[in-house]
């Protein structure tokens, strides 16, 4: 495939790394995303607005600031980073796991928003009906609410994936730009634009980036339409 597209090994690595990082960012944020969306949609507790604000913070802060905060907390010398390293051997600095974390954080607000809206749209009477028939709250959630909110969950996942594919500022600030580990597609494009003679490569990668994003959006659209046909009331 790489030869077909005339990609150099460096470029192929960056594309593969981007897909891998985006995939893991999306899947690791899924469960926390669903839980937080549920809490924000249905919950009534002190500090709810604060939590809502916190979740949306990466959306409005400059990405470099988010990356810098991650660096301060989870860098090699950061309080959390040192703790995780000493007790669990987990290191984020200069690793693809750090890139995935940065992408997950940046895509999280988009995922939570999409899922929350979907949960809020679920008819509560269906949930009540299930409860009167004897279902426990957790079961109601898993069997009634979540399937009905699935279009929003899918949308949230795709948004998180697409955001992760395009994430640059937080990644480069937090885990630098290391080929094979943290040099994702946007980082490599940036590097190539800084080096005389790199324009051809930058252009190639730009086109690939656009193609992947388009593909993700088309898949999301297709899935949403399939689900609309299967699920009642949507």
């Amino acid at each position: 495939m790489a030869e077909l597209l005339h990609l150099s090994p460096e470029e192929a690595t960056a594309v593969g790394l981007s897909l891998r990082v985006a995939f893991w960012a999306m899947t690791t944020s899924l469960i926390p995303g669903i839980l937080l969306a549920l809490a924000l949609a249905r919950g009534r507790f002190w500090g709810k607005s604060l939590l809502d604000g916190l979740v949306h913070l990466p959306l409005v802060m400059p990405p470099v600031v988010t990356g810098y905060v991650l660096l301060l907390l989870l860098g090699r010398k950061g309080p959390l980073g040192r703790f995780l390293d000493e007790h669990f051997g987990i290191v984020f600095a200069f690793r693809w796991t750090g890139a995935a974390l940065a992408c997950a954080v940046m895509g999280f607000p988009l995922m939570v928003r999409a899922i929350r809206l979907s949960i809020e749209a679920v008819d509560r009477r269906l949930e009540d009906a299930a409860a009167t028939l004897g279902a426990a709250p957790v079961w109601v959630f898993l069997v009634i609410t979540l399937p009905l909110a699935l279009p929003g969950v899918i949308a949230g996942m795709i948004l998180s994936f697409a955001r992760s594919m395009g994430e640059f500022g937080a990644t480069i600030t937090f885990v630098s730009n290391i080929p094979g580990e943290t040099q994702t597609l946007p980082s490599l494009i940036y590097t190539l634009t800084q080096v005389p003679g790199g324009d051809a490569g930058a252009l190639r990668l730009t086109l690939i980036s656009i193609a992947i994003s388009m593909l993700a959006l088309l898949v999301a659209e297709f899935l949403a339409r399939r689900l609309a046909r299967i699920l009642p009331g949507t």
Partner: protein
Amino acid sequence: MARGVPFPISRRLFACVFLILLSGAWDNAAPAQDAKLVIFAAASLKDALDEVNAAYQREKGQATTTSYAASSTLAKQLEAAAPADIFISADLDWMDYLAKRNLIKPETRANLLANRLVLIAPVNSPLNLAIGPNFPLAQALGNGRLAIADPNAVPAGRYGKAALGSLGAWSTVADRLAPAENVRATLALVSRGEAPLGIVYQTDADSDKAVKIIGTFPENTHPPIIYPIAVVAISTNPAVMGYLTYLKSPAARPIFEKHGFTFLQ
């Protein structure tokens, strides 16, 4: 809203704020005379050149503005016709690159400064390494990475790659690098303790108290580190030759030498 007031306060306030914001969009172009000199300089020159420019402004009354970045980045910008007057590169290659494309005035080109390449570590590091053929750099790194400016394009990285190559240590660390955008970003990585070792210029190491020099690379392991200066071909600023003369004069020498550069003029 108060009765009898023809225009509500809130609307007036909005109009005021809008006009203030709009005024920012007005282009307040400075007069052509006394136009600032635009200098593109290698990142490692930051502290020294800032001081020289300040002295120049005091003595000659000419204002300057300097953009510091990796020489490769600056060369790329000049290739795209960036409106600069002077270019100071950290290696001869990038100056040659521009000369080949007729982007500098070749008669104004001169070698201004020289520097040394050093291996640094955070100031509290317990590491002790003697730089020599096949020295145990990979072992010293442990599970950390060697901070270096991008070895493909940035001069500091290229010198570092050449030096490690001459000493037979490049292949052992080639996959253990933390490439940075320029030499100052490399310095920051070591300064912050994110990388256990790094390769920067001696002048950079001297400027940061949070790092210490583990060793200096022998000069025969890499091409001589020379900073050429030249006037950019599209420059029309009349003050440019005066600035060039000042930079090569005994007035600028003590400032450069104080920061650790070798003055070549």
